[in-house]
């Protein structure tokens, strides 16, 4: 009986290792099967595919494929005026448009030496934290979703919609906010915003309690998440792992703390960390971050001034030229370091922009590594636990 439940496949015989060190994966041997997970698959976030070779139900080889939504965002931005870049850049990670807006605007401001008003800094901080909250409300219960625990996802989506409502009244849009632009932001808080936000935050406080009972104190979730998809500590530097994925192996790495920007220095918070580096650890870190983000939004709303200028004067946006220069601007998105390398050459368009999204490291090289020896049913769980956002891989 005990053997039945603790049965482990005997992988000592295959795949055999060839003399040159490569695995001998011969499909005609009938010991291996190729399987595509994605690009259209409910378990894959966004459009990408993982090509796996399985032996039994265990993965022997994995390869990530992207290119299903390549629109050439960087090139599109390089061929447009500085101001025209920001409606395009947000599409580089649809789930959290504000980080795109922020790094692009900040790059332009940095290169042209523009300081933004204090009010705009607070509003930017608020928008970025709201984006994190919106993202975590989807991701935290989403991890349960990969194990068929759909209920938490429903709860999270409802609350995420409420935050979308707040975004709608602050920025004029629910998804593509287009709120942060070079020089500042596009509006003050509407009347009564803080009260409505507080109502939503109270609901999220309750959600945090409920989701713990539903997901984290759940024997099935624990069984499937603990010890699965482990990131080893030495991989963090090897693969350039950032954000919650790094914090879940005990490495405190957070741009908000390491390279403070906007108003984060004036906020009181300590990024949560965990030790084990498995799916459960990453979920726990994100869960703690969700609680912390709610607290941060409360802090921001309490500390921000009531009124002030929202935008600094900029050169005429229709023929704004920026002198030769280059900069790298980073911010801490909910997935980790989100940066932009921006080069200008004195013309009215950027010479080169390059987005450094965490998904590139996480979903391309790291995921291929982590999937080896994993069970086929854990592919989505591992991928989602890395919080992949495919558009930023192939921007």
């Amino acid at each position, binding site marked *: 009986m005990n053997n039945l439940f603790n049965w482990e496949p005997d992988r000592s015989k295959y795949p055999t290792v060839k003399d040159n060190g490569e695995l001998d994966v011969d499909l005609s041997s009938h010991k291996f099967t190729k399987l595509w997970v994605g690009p259209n698959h409910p378990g894959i976030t966004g459009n990408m595919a993982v090509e796996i070779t399985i032996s039994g139900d265990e993965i022997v080889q994995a390869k990530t494929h992207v290119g299903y939504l390549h629109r050439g965002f960087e090139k599109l931005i390089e061929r447009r005026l500085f101001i*025209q870049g*920001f*409606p395009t850049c947000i599409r580089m990670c649809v789930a959290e448009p504000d980080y795109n807006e922020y790094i692009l605007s900040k790059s332009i401001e940095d290169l042209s030496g523009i300081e933004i008003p204090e009010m705009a800094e607070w509003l930017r901080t608020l928008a970025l934290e709201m984006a994190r909250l919106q993202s975590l409300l989807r991701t935290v219960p989403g991890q349960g979703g990969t194990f068929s625990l759909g209920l938490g996802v429903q709860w999270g989506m409802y609350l995420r919609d409420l935050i979308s409502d707040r975004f*709608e009244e602050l920025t004029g849009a629910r998804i593509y906010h287009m709120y942060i632009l070079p020089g*500042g932001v596009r509006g003050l808080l509407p009347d009564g915003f803080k009260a409505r936000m507080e109502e939503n935050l109270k609901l999220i406080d309750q959600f945090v309690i409920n989701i713990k009972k539903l997901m984290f104190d*759940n024997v099935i979730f624990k069984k499937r998440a603990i010890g699965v998809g482990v990131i080893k500590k030495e991989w963090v530097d090897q693969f350039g792992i950032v954000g919650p994925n790094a914090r879940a192996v005990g490495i405190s790495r957070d741009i908000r703390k390491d390279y403070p920007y906007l108003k984060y220095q004036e906020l009181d918070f300590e990024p949560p960390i965990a030790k084990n580096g498995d799916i459960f650890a990453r979920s726990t870190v994100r869960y703690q971050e969700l609680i912390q983000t709610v607290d941060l939004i409360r802090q921001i709303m309490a500390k921000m001034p009531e009124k002030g200028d929202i935008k600094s004067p900029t050169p*005429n946006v229709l*023929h704004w030229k920026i002198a030769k220069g280059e900069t790298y601007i980073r911010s801490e998105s909910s997935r980790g370091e989100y940066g932009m390398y921006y080069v200008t050459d004195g013309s009215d368009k950027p010479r080169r922009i390059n987005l450094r999204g965490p998904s590139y490291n996480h979903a391309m090289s790291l995921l291929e590594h982590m999937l080896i020896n994993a069970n086929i049913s854990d592919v989505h769980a591992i991928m989602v636990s890395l919080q992949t956002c495919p558009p930023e891989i192939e921007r």
Partner: protein
Amino acid sequence: MGKIKDILSPFTAWGNVVKEPVTIKKPIGREAAPRYRGFHKNDIDTCIGCGTCEVICENEAIDLVPVDGIETKDGDSGLRPMIDYGRCCWCALCVDVCTTGSLTLSNEYTWVSEDPDEFRFIPGVDKKSWDDNEKGWKKPEPNYEFYGKKRVEMPELHAEDRDKSFIEFVTGYSKQQAEEEADRCVECGICTATCPAHMGIPEYIKAIRNDDLEEGLRILYETNPLPEICGRICTHKCEDVCSVGHNGDPISIRWLKRYIADQNPSEKYKEILNAENIENNGKKVAIIGSGPSGLSAAYYLALTGYECTIFEKLPEAGGMMRYGIPEYRLPYDQIDKDINYILSLGVDIKYNVNIGTDITLDKLKKDYDAVFAGTGLHLGRSTRIPGSDHENVYFATDLLREISLGNEIHVSEKIVVIGGGNVAMDITRSLARLQNNKFGKVNVTATSLESEDIMPADREEVVEAREEKAIIDPGWGPTSIEIENGKIKGLHVQKCLSVFDESGRFNPKFDESNTKFFEADMIVESIGQGMDVEYISEEIREQIEFDQRGRIQVNDYFQTGAKWLFIGGDIIQGPDVIHGIANGHKAAIGIDKFINQNG
């Protein structure tokens, strides 16, 4: 124990069964936030079709298209934005950049139509269900601008530093100031359409931004051979219609033009303008009058190889620019800079030649292939009120001419100027300076029929005249000049209620019970000028068409009924310098056509 908790705990979710669902029952019809970026609206009466929305749109979703019922006119391109919802991403940059504030978004976001063509529409013209929706995205506030709204102040001498001298008091932009001002331009080109000479204004402003002032000069000379002059005293109709002026100060187009001309040294003009080798075509054109129209015609004819001779009645060239505009606004050396360049192209001027008496027009007809006459309006008009024939009642144009000639004019302690145009302000401010030098104080009053808000003079002229302690008291119609013992005592006026009647004709109405008396011992009339075309003989006159009011009729190329005679400048259009320049340019094209194609 922990494991049992982990088995039971998820079942607490069943508690939701007894709770109210949070689902919205009717999701369609939910109103969006007041700031929502929904469908486009455009107030087409406010919109001027400047096209900045079209330029900023990163998706090229906006096209400016002609609309039935909207005519192209000064300050309005006659076009309106058409939006393609197959391309739009609702970023609302078009709203934020809109110069007039006419373009907004409603907060409506659902719309169903089976006709795909309907998704490409002209907001405000093609009726939509959201046209009356007041909510939605508008340009954010406060201090949210995509381009500078405030103009860079032109450095000037203070009133106390300038009110005794005829030295130029506007000092000109520095490089930094000019570039900052040039940055505000949105390159809509509304100005170009309105400028009588259709100068390439956005292009030369762009040249300033690029710090390519030689290119700037080339653009100026394409349409205007008198940039130093126009850069100082142009009536800048371009600035009146500037789209940036709708929600801020218009671009200082005139000062930017002056900046380009000032920065280019005259010795380099020929090289910059590529005018070093002009081939003579052997044809000769006579030009009567060296005012803006004559000089402009001479310049463009000379460029094409014509041999031009200008006949000037006065001892120096420039016409009204030299003899009608005071030196503090337009210094003589700057007039010379422009004129000398034109002369350097081989244009000849014969000074002190009076056509009609020294040489007849018929002689010119025989000796030259064509004749252009731009003799201007030099005859002063009188109010013809009782007492206006007194010897101490002068015409402004006569006095200004005498000042420019360097002759001493009669200046008394108390002067009244009748008139509210730029000439009236010129003589008022000139007399104020002379009074200051002679008596150490200013006592000159300018009065006009027109009330303050419709005074034809440039606003800055009125303001600056007041800074120089002249009194401007508009809204009065002169009735008589009181003369006692042969000396002027002053001017009687009555309140003017309106200047024009309902159909827009000059028909002043007065309140006879409301009168006023301006003390004065000298009066200057500046109510307009007339032309003197005595030099045109009866025989030629018969070939020329005149309208009922005695005005000469010309075709599009300023050609009269006598095919060889072209007339332009203040006589035909204006009066101002830029119309003269435009006329001269057009006439030069006409003369070229006439001579080469016998047209």
